[in-house]
């Protein structure tokens, strides 16, 4: 057996709840035993549109939280923005609907063995996987601060119960409609100093991850980010979701964000080369 996708299972999940939360949908589905293998950062690939759909590719979503104690057995929660035709379809699925899913996929966030000071940064619905991560980090004794940013307040995803999993929550929006005005990177440097941050975990748009990497690198703070690239398969066979990543020996190779990610060490990603012609890599 292979070591790639080693916990991944294809199964029929059942929608337990689908609730609109601001600009997003909170979807909970039962997945059974496989929940035991799901870690913060892992994702799920869902078949969309039904059997006669013209959408042939699965849609990938970060797992927001997991629960193994509910009356439905193992459940996972997703936060979905109804943007494209696939996510819109998913957001329309009612309780009881069966979904063809493959999970868990991808790498997960590394959890420090010792209690440390961590900062979780989410852009838009990129905050989704961070609440489950916060629970795990808190349970290990870490101090967990969270910084959420978005273009506008309606795009901040910060549920009440999520706020309880963190020691502090700072919200910042570009239009100032919620929290302070600006971008997450405007206050990052001072937060690192004030809170003695050891590790940053981030999830959100690529431009945000790039900007965080620059600050984290200059402050020598470890930065684990969950990247977002268009995927066709989610299991490593299509080679579309690649990112240029630098190895220890300095060589650059195109890594698949589905199996070598989505969680990557931000300092190894060559952000400036994303979308560039790889033939020109030095």
């Amino acid at each position, binding site marked *: *057996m*292979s*070591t*790639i*996708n*080693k916990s*991944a299972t*294809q199964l029929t999940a059942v929608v337990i709840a689908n609730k609109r939360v601001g600009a997003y949908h909170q979807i909970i589905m039962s997945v059974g035993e496989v929940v035991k293998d799901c870690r913060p950062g892992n994702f799920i690939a869902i*078949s969309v549109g039904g059997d006669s759909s*013209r*959408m*042939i*590719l*699965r849609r990938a979503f970060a797992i927001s939280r997991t629960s193994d104690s509910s009356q439905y057995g193992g459940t996972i929660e997703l936060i979905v923005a109804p943007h494209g035709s696939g996510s819109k379809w998913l957001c329309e699925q009612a309780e009881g609907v069966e979904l*063809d899913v*493959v999970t868990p996929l991808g790498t997960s966030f590394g959890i420090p063995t010792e209690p440390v000071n961590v900062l979780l940064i989410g852009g838009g619905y990129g905050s989704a996987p961070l609440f489950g991560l916060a629970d795990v980090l808190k349970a290990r004794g870490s101090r967990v601060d969270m910084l959420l940013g978005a273009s506008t307040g309606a795009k901040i995803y910060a549920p009440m119960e999520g706020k309880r999993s963190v020691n502090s929550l700072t919200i910042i929006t570009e239009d100032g409609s919620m929290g302070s005005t600006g971008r997450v990177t405007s206050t990052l440097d001072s937060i690192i100093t004030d809170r003695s941050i050891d590790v940053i975990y981030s999830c959100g748009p690529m431009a945000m991850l790039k900007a965080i990497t620059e600050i984290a690198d200059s402050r020598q703070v470890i930065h684990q980010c969950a990247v977002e*690239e*268009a*995927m*066709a*398969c989610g*299991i*490593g*066979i*299509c*080679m*579309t*979701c*690649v*990112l*240029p990543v630098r190895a220890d020996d300095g060589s*650059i*190779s*195109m890594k698949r964000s589905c*199996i070598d990610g989505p969680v990557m060490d931000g300092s190894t990603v060559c952000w400036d080369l*994303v*979308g*560039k*012609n*790889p*033939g020109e*890599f030095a």
Partner: protein
Amino acid sequence: MSTVDLSTTLGNAWFPAPIFTASGCASSGKELAQFFPLKDIGAVVTKSVMTKPRHGRPTPRMAETPSGMLNSIGLQGPGIDSFLANDVPWLVAQGARVIVSIAGETADEYAVLARKIRATGGISAIEVNISCPNVENRGLVFATDCDTSARVIDSVRKIIGGEIPIIAKLTPDVTDITSVAKAVHDSGADAVALINTILGMVINIDSMRPHLGGKTGGLSGPAIRPVAVRAIYQVHSALPQLPILGMGGVATGRDALEMILAGASGVSVGTASFGNPTAAISVQRELGELLSARGFTSLRQAVGYAHRVESNEPERDSR
């Protein structure tokens, strides 16, 4: 339901089952092994490999289209030496049959690749992907020209001919695919793989530029299946003795049966695996059921069955 003999042959290679992966849609097998035993399908056709490691094209590399997708990967890969040292032994250890797909920029590069494959054990056949730009002829795709196609196959045949079957993978982006099939057959191809992707483009209406980093991409998925069935039917009709490995948008057993009836001896599942990691194994199971329901006792009886002459229809069970 009676059991159908699903075994098949391509040239002198025998396969216990007729469903294969399609090159470029299964990487080199490790990723799919979690979902089904690779030895249960006919063979794993590995991603086309070149002599040197390649980064491929810039992202975005993918665009979903109605019932299909465009890809522009640019043959990212580890290079033949690493591939033969690491990936082939792993596949052989799984008990899988292996068909290695090769790609080159010159006829000589194909010969170099064939020489290395000849020196490696456990490979059932070689797929020669000639849908690549020919750097010696203004970047024109080899498979769009009979002479350059024949030259590549000839250079591979000189190295490996008679040892393992040579399967030439053809593009449907030509005026007459039967003439290209005839050219590669005459120069020593033991079988043809039909079809490669169809060249396409998507323009992003926000950036108002081509969406893919490589601008153009290969269209695959159910959208192209009728093109594949047509190509298989035409080539089988023109060259009934030339074995065909059919592919192009196969997602179910009925799709595979369509290609078998058109003249394919085996069928590859490609893009369907992106949407469903167990597609190949379910296509194979469904194909067996459909053949049985139609009274076939072996796959071989059904190959090219759509070409039969109506007035002289033989009894299937007595064939």
